[in-house]
Structure formats: structure tokens, C-alpha cells
């Protein structure tokens, strides 16, 4: 599944990121490397973007980009 589909409050393990517009490299540099555990904290009131917690910090990412992040439910 992809990160945009992970329900708020659930944890997931990152499998890989589809290359698109340099996003993959940037996300990996911010610590979203394959095998990293993350959790979806919440969706913004209007449904988008989403807030994730990864490696101790919180990151906001739009669903459009989250859809490029493949992960496995934990």
C-alpha cells in the first residue's frame, strides 16, 4: 500500500519511494530510507496534507506525494 492510504494513528514500515522530480532523494536525506518505521499522526482537517512521525520528528506531506511512498502496515 502507499502512505496516503495508511489510516491516521497507524504505523507502517517504509518499503521504497517511487522516483519523481527528485522527491525520492530529498525524502531519503530526511531519513525516510527503506526499512524505516513511521506512523501517520493525523490528516489535516480538510483531508490533506497528512502529518507523519518519523525518526522522532513530525513531517507534513501532501497526499499526492505520499502516494509515491510504498509501505507495509505494521
Amino acid at each position: 500500500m502507499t502512505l496516503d492510504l495508511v489510516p491516521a494513528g497507524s504505523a507502517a514500515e517504509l518499503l521504497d519511494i517511487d522516483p519523481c522530480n527528485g522527491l525520492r532523494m530529498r525524502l531519503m536525506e530526511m531519513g525516510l530510507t527503506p526499512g524505516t518505521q513511521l506512523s501517520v499522526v493525523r490528516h489535516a482537517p480538510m483531508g490533506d496534507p497528512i502529518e507523519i512521525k518519523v525518526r522522532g520528528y513530525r513531517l507534513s506531506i501532501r497526499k499526492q506525494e505520499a502516494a509515491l511512498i510504498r509501505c507495509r502496515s505494521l
Partner: protein
Amino acid sequence: MAPVPDPARRQRIVAVAGNPNSGKTTLFNALTGAHAKIGNYPGITVESRTAEAELPRAGRVTLVDVPGTYSLTARSPDEEVAINSLLGRKGLPRPDAVLVVLDAVALERSLFFLMQVMEFGLPVIAVVNMIDAARGEGIDLHFDALRKEFGIPVVGTVARRRQGLDLLRETLDDLLADERPPPAPDWLWEPCAELSRDLDQFDAAIREEVQFSLPTPAARRAFALWLMMSVTPHSELEVRPRLRGIALEVRARLEAEGRDLAREAVAARYAKIDLLAPRLITRNPPRSHQTERIDAVLTHPLWGTAVFVTIMGLIFQTLFSWSEPFMGLIENGVGGLAGALRGVLPAGFLRDLLLDGVIAGVGGVLVFLPQILFLFLFISILEGTGYLARAAFLIDRLMRRLGLHGQAFVPMLSGYACAIPAIMATRTIDNRRDRFLTIMAVPLISCSARLPVYTLVIALTFPAAQKIGFLSTGTLVLLGIYVLSSLLALLAVGLLGRTVFKGRPRPLLLELPAYRMPDPKTVLMVMWERSRAFLTTAGTVILVMTVVLWVLLSFPRAGADLPDGTAAAAVQSEQLRHSYAGRIGGAIEPVIEPLGFDWKIGIGLIGAFAAREVFVGTMGVVYGVGGDGDAADETLREAMLRDRRPDGRPVWTPLTGVSLIVFFMIAMQCMSTLAVTRRETASWGWTLFMLSYLTVAAYLASLLVYQGGRALGFA
């Protein structure tokens, strides 16, 4: 006795680098005095910040605030400046030491950045900041293990509380005092064989081409890796052609071999960090859930929205109304000064130049200060607490529909008060495309300076007695103006975003930092630095333009041929008609006539360039009732309504009024906005683009309204 620093030695340079939100700027401010030097790196919009600090042995050192980035790979101007300031590229001085500020809560991500810096062989001190927040999150950090594994000095700090700073100063002093600093540790990770081969391929070229210092083989390899990561076929990065050629060649081969640079160079570093992490960090259950608890309210669909609306309403109210008394105070103060000097100085050209040109110009610059100070008070507090990122998070969905990011909301909102602080506030937008797009659209939002013009023209052309339902026509027109101007700004964002700023916007990854108390010194420094930046660069341009405008409006002198005893207002009026501006107003009449404007309105448009509300005063002078009246002035209104064209038709018909309102809604008629745009974009090209696209659009829109209205049978 402290050893006297060797005066022959140049002042040492210390770079302060780190991730955004790591408290880097607070640490920088805590280490330095109250005076930071602000400048722009040549040709780009990234600001440089340096300040001095005093150390016992090293003496006075210069601290450089390196832009906060998550990586040294250069994809944005900020990241390019970061690497250039660390390596001493592009004419920047090479630092003698680097303080890498690590976010204690997001230590792994910070360690990735630290590894990148260390690979270049720079003398580094790791400053683990916000250790109090880490404790709250249940994170125990093992500094000894960190020192041992990374082979560098490590200091824990809470910059906001000024904790750990003495030890940091001492450590830094030791590092600088050491004549022969310990050899830089080798890379902490081993690149795979293929990547290693790729990096070696750069070595000869780097030795021959690179001007700045890369002292060791490890440093050259670090630069080779940086080139591989940063140089892409589309990047505009300035790199020697030979190095660029190798980088592109190596990348092409890498792709042909089906390899993955992100895994080989990024995931490999994180693998090393993950391997070390258990020795560096112990995670216990969090002791404080402060950020979770605050977020449960502030990002709640109902309460979060309510708080958002309240805070934004407060900002709007402050800029729109509560800064008014302060602006009045400045205007009266400057007016009083000019009045006092008028009685003292001998009459003549110099007195008029000083009073009506220079002092009036200074007043015209200072009057923006209250709004700038208030806006940056809010922004720096909201940024310091971490709420600004939440505001962007909440509103992003809405802003995305308009083609912008949530970060563009506060600048756009500020535009309803004044474009000057609004354009300055676009600095909070990370992404250059969104930032420039917002700057270009902000002047279309109806600012408060346009209100007196709207009020005057509405009062002239839509009698207050006329009502539609229970609202007067004038009220409805004013409401319509604000709705329409907002729509126009959105339309501009849409159109420019699809044409001038074409290309996929860089997706924004917004960190939501833990909530904390803002650092008072940093808040004050932001307010002071933004005001100073405005005064010194935009302010001087505005001052010069005010004087030029004054010359246009006051010369050549008329009056010698006026009969004695002519009323003062009539003299003023005659003087204005006689001036260069008056002549230009006459000369452009054929151009603006199709919009329904005559030469008197033409003069008003020229005068309005000083500030839009000046239009009202200029009309007062043109119509010979004096320039001190306001929009509610009956005499001015009556004089204007009596005015007839040569063919006997009234000048001020509703159609002319609507056409003039449309013109004021769109036209770029504010030299202060242009001056501040020049400063914030660091480009005359973009400034001229703003001036021309808005002027052309205003002309065409007014032409359409006036000629269309006539074709439909309106007078």
C-alpha cells in the same frame, strides 16, 4: 593572564550550520552580541547573516549563520549558499571551524547532515541543541559514545535558556587556539565498490580545477560525491564545465547500470547511523506529551479552525487598524518637524527641497515601520512557537487549489493592509517559485492605501442616497471591489503559475517542530533586522523616488505672472498645472482619454505613485481647494462634480468612476512596493516585470470597462 591574540592573524571565521528548526538561529543569537550584519549573497535572494563574538584566547571571531538545510546537496539557492559558505566556494571565506547544530529530538536526521559536513574534513564541533526537549520525549543521549564514534568534540545545549554556552565557547576556543588541529576523521561509512570507482574518476579534475581548499583525499571524494548528487542535466548550478561533464557522465552510467544513487549514498549513511544509534540513544517512554496535547487542539477540525481564524483575524486587525495610530504619530511627527523648520530656515529652493522632498520622503519611508514591526512580531512569535508551520498545515488544502502552498497564506493576508510588509513576509515561503509567484500577485490585493481613493470616487459617482435593498450602492461597490480584487490576485496566481512560473512546483516537505517558547532575543532581532533591511535598501530607493517626484510636481516654478492677492489654493493649483507632472498629465491625456480620464486625473495618477492615497490630495490641489482635504471633503467633491469636459459633459460620470476604480485596483502605482520587490527578489528584471504586467493589465481592464460601458449606452 590571558594571552594576547596575535594582531597579524586574520579574524577567525566560525560557520554555524544545521537543519531548519534545530534552534540554529537562537544559538547564533545567543553566542553573539546584538548586532548582526545582514546582506544578500550577490544576485540571489538568500540573506547572509554574520556577527561577532569574543573568545578568551582566539579573541574576536566572526560567526556566519549558514542557511538551515537538511542536506548539503545543492538543489535550491539556500542549499547552494550552505555548501559555498562551508567550503569557501564562490569567493566566500573558508571557515576555521564549523558548529553543526543538531536537533536532539531528531538526532538521526541531524547526524546525516553532520556526516556530510565532516566528510569535507572541516574542523567540526557537534552542538546537540534542545536537550531539554529530548529529555521530555524520553530520549537519553550518550555524549561520550557520540564523541568516540564521530571523533569530534560534542557539547549539549539549550540555546533558548542559554544553557551549555560557556562549555561551547570554551570548546570552540580550544579548537581555534590549536595551531595544528587533529587530523579530520575519515569517512564514517564505506561506499560500495561501484560508487567508490565513480568518485575516483573525479580526482584528477578536482585537483586541477578546484580553487578552494580540499586538503585531503577524503575531502576531494566528498566534493566528488557532492557533484554527483547536485549536478543534474537541468540544474543551473554553477560548476566548472569539466566537473559538470564528469558528473553527468557518471550519472548516466549509473543509470545505465541500473544502480540507485539514493541508496548508495544516502541510505548507506543512514545504515551506518542506524548501526550506531543504539549506542548513542536510549529511547524511554516520553515524559511529556506537550506537543501531542497542543496539536490535538490546534489541528482539531473545529477548535483548530477557530484558533486559526482568531490568530489570522488578530494579525489582520493589527495591520489594518491598530497600526494606524502609530502611523499617524509618525506622520504628525514628520509634519511637525517640517513645520518647525519651515519657520526657521530661509525661504528658497533648498528649504523646499529639504522639507517637501527629503523630510517628506523620510516620513514616507518611516510610515511603513509600524506595520513591518507588527507583522514580524507576529511571524517571529508564530515561527518560534512552531505554530506557523501548523497554520500552513491547516490551510494548505485551500491554498493548493490556488496553486500555492499553505505558507503563502500569511503574506497574502497581510496584503490587505499593505503590500510592503506582505512582500517582506514571503521570506517564510521555502520554495522559490511559490515565493516569487506570491510577490507578483500580492499588489493586486486591495491594500489600505487604496481605500481613500475608492471612498472619494464612490462618493463622487454613487450618491449615498442610492440604495439597493437596505445597503447603499456605495457600500455594495466597495464590497464588490474587495471581492473582485481578491479574485484578481487568485487569477494572477493561476495565470502566472501556468505561464511565467511554469514547471512542476517543488513538492514541499514541511517539518512540524515541537511546540516551544519563542526566544525573546530572536523575536526582537527578527523585528529589528527586517526593519533595518527595509530602511537601508528599500528606504533609500523610496527616498530618492520621493525627491524625484517632488521635483516633477514642483518645477518649473509658476507664479511670477499670477496677479497679487491670488488665493493660496489657486496658486498651488496653477503651480501644479505648470509643473513637469502637470505637463506629463497633459501629454498623456490622449493615452488615458480612452479610459475616460482627463489630464487632471493624469496628474493624480502621477502623484499617486508616491503612495496611492496621495491621489486624493493631488485632486484637491488640481481643483484648487487645497491639498489637505480627505475623501470626505465636501468642497473637493463639489468642485469635482462641477467639472466639465470641453464638450460640456461632466468629467465625473459613474462610468469614469468605475473605470478609475478598476485602474486603481490593478495598476502598479506604488514605488515603495517596487522598491521592496527589488530588494526581496534581488532583481530589477522581476521588478520591471511586476510594473509592466500590472500597468498593461490595468490599462486594458479600464479600457474594456469604459469603452464597453459606452457601447452598452452608459454615459
